[in-house]
């Protein structure tokens, strides 16, 4: 009876008793969710255009952030370091397309997936040799990101919202809108989507596979840089950050591998729900740290009912 009470009654009673705390938890979850959504977006873009499950997105986040900090450490002004980092990400995209993807065209999905794990390992080793393994502080102020915090007092309580989190959310929204417009309105964007639908048909109407792949990996690099700045501002930049890539995977399952809007909604849903679960159920009942698996188990349960994710394309199978 006590257990049932602790599962079904007490958490909700706690939520009602302290609505300001609940709001704070929801906000934290939302910010985390936006970051998950950004990483998932990088995955979705590459998957849509090339059917490659890009495991390297997480390390690209770290690599982009470290490159940015590295440029700044060598005396490059912060606002100049951003375009320089983007140039590095572009070179990386070209290199990946030339060296890894082009020879592997037409191989089974799992081979390409393994190749991206190979890229991940390579970038980890390469990055650690260049930048060293220690945790670095993101150059938040130099990038003109406000660092104060707003406080509200709803319901007679206290909620604090950090300005950099707010910047992150606004920045992510802008990025996503730009991306959606680009994908749906521009010629290049339509070419990306065409390639996602059918490689051979796209090739036969004159869409260049290698150009689009470089473009897509570059966009994924841009998203990685944005994610790296935002996440780095919250928690510093180190190779441990690579594990957040795993957080994007259940988001992908939930949202569907091909859906941009699914990635965003799934990311936010998982960010909020896992925070709520951790605070109200995980810590009192299970000893905490449930964030490592909650999202996966949630996604697994959803998938049992909708195998293509909430927003994925319907799977039609033929023999």
């Amino acid at each position: 009876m006590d257990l049932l009470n602790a599962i079904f009654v007490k958490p909700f009673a706690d939520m009602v008793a302290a609505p300001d705390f609940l709001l704070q938890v929801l906000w934290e979850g939302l910010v985390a969710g936006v970051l998950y959504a950004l990483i998932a977006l990088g995955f979705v873009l590459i998957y849509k255009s090339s059917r490659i499950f890009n495991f390297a997105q997480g390390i690209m986040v770290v690599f982009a952030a470290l490159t940015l900090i590295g440029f700044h450490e060598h005396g490059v002004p912060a606002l100049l370091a951003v375009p320089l980092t983007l140039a590095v990400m572009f070179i990386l995209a070209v290199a990946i397309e030339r060296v890894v993807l082009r020879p592997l065209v037409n191989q089974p999905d799992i081979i390409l997936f393994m190749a991206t794990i190979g890229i991940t390992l390579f970038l980890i080793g390469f990055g650690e040799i260049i930048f060293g393994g220690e945790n670095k502080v993101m150059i938040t102020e130099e990038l003109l990101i406000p660092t104060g915090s707003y406080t509200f007092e709803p319901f007679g309580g206290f909620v604090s919202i950090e300005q950099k989190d707010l910047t992150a959310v606004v920045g992510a929204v802008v990025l996503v809108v730009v991306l959606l417009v680009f994908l749906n309105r521009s010629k290049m964007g339509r070419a990306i989507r065409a390639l996602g639908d059918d490689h051979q048909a796209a090739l036969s109407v004159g869409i260049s596979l290698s150009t689009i792949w470089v473009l897509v990996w570059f966009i994924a690099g841009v998203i990685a840089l944005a994610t790296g700045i935002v996440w780095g501002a919250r928690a510093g930049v180190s190779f441990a950050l690579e594990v957040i890539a795993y957080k994007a995977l259940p988001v992908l399952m939930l949202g569907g591998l091909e859906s941009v809007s699914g990635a965003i909604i799934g990311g936010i849903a998982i960010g909020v729900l896992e925070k709520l679960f951790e605070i109200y159920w995980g810590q009192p009942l299970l000893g905490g740290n449930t964030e490592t698996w909650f999202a996966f188990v949630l996604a697994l349960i959803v998938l049992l009912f909708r195998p293509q994710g909430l927003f994925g394309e319907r799977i039609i199978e033929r023999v």
Partner: protein
Amino acid sequence: MLYRTAGQFKTSYRADHALFPVRQDAWLLAFILLLAFVVFPMTANEFVFRALLTPVLIYALAALGLNILTGYAGQLSLGTGAFMGVGAYACYKLVTIFPDLNLIVAIMLSGFFSAAIGVAFGLPSLRIKGFYLAIATLAAQFFLVWLFEKWAWLYNYNSSGSIQVPTISVFGHPVAGPNATAIVQYYVVLVIVAVITWLAINITRGRIGRMWKAVRDMDIAAELVGINLMKAKLSAFAVSSYIVGVAGALFVFLWRGAAEPVAFDIPLSFRVLFIAIIGGLGSVLGNYLGAILIVALPVIISTLPASVGLPLSSAMVEHLNTMIIGALIILFLIVEPHGLARFWAIIREKLIMWPFPH
């Protein structure tokens, strides 16, 4: 020349489907077994046992388990490390609850626990396919490692939170724990690995193995010709997790001697997956070739610079190691996506034909 098959006539279907239709294959295997059972133990020292021979066998066994699931039944799994952990923790509990139990029996029994957990986490495979399933197995990976950390009963409430292998003797010889000698451990591992490999080869050649291959190649078609998908997929998960669990128990009890939950985290899963893929999906031999490559490479990379007079710091060596392994994985995938086993198959084919090109 060496592989001339002339004169080896098959007069029945049985002979044609024998395990070694070509006599030279049997000789080659006998030679390798001779090396493994007699020559290596006589020549190797403690370091070679601990750093090369035993880990190669254990990783090859784990990769064999994964290969049955991914290479034969076509179900991609990223949770191998956690299933190895289940085997290790089950074996630890068995050994501490029943101290009189023979260690080898305990290791063989612990596989059943991971098989049960594997079937439970394999249930989603009935609905989910491809990468969605791979991510679903990651749920097992993260949940189980979390459980190893939080469920104190699993490690007998000791303060370090890790499992320490006590000294265990079998027939009067210390086999596990600090007093065991490397050569005894090597022999135990070798025998277990050899027996399981032999069983696995025969399972994959038989009715069940063909069922798995049909499901891998196209599951709907397999269903239409009357294969029970549920039975095929879940049996693949069970057999695979059993082997992986035994490998996990060997990993801790006969090699590492102690393990904390982090040891079973996702890098272990990926390492086993690398071995299976570089070795070759859907082959038994490939697991051994892949394991030799992945285990020997770090040893070579760490000893090579010192031997040619290039002193490198240990951190540098580690980073170089990660980088080179990443690059090699890409290289191998580009040169031969079907793995080292395919290389061997091509060489063998050439040797049989030699000196004629076709």
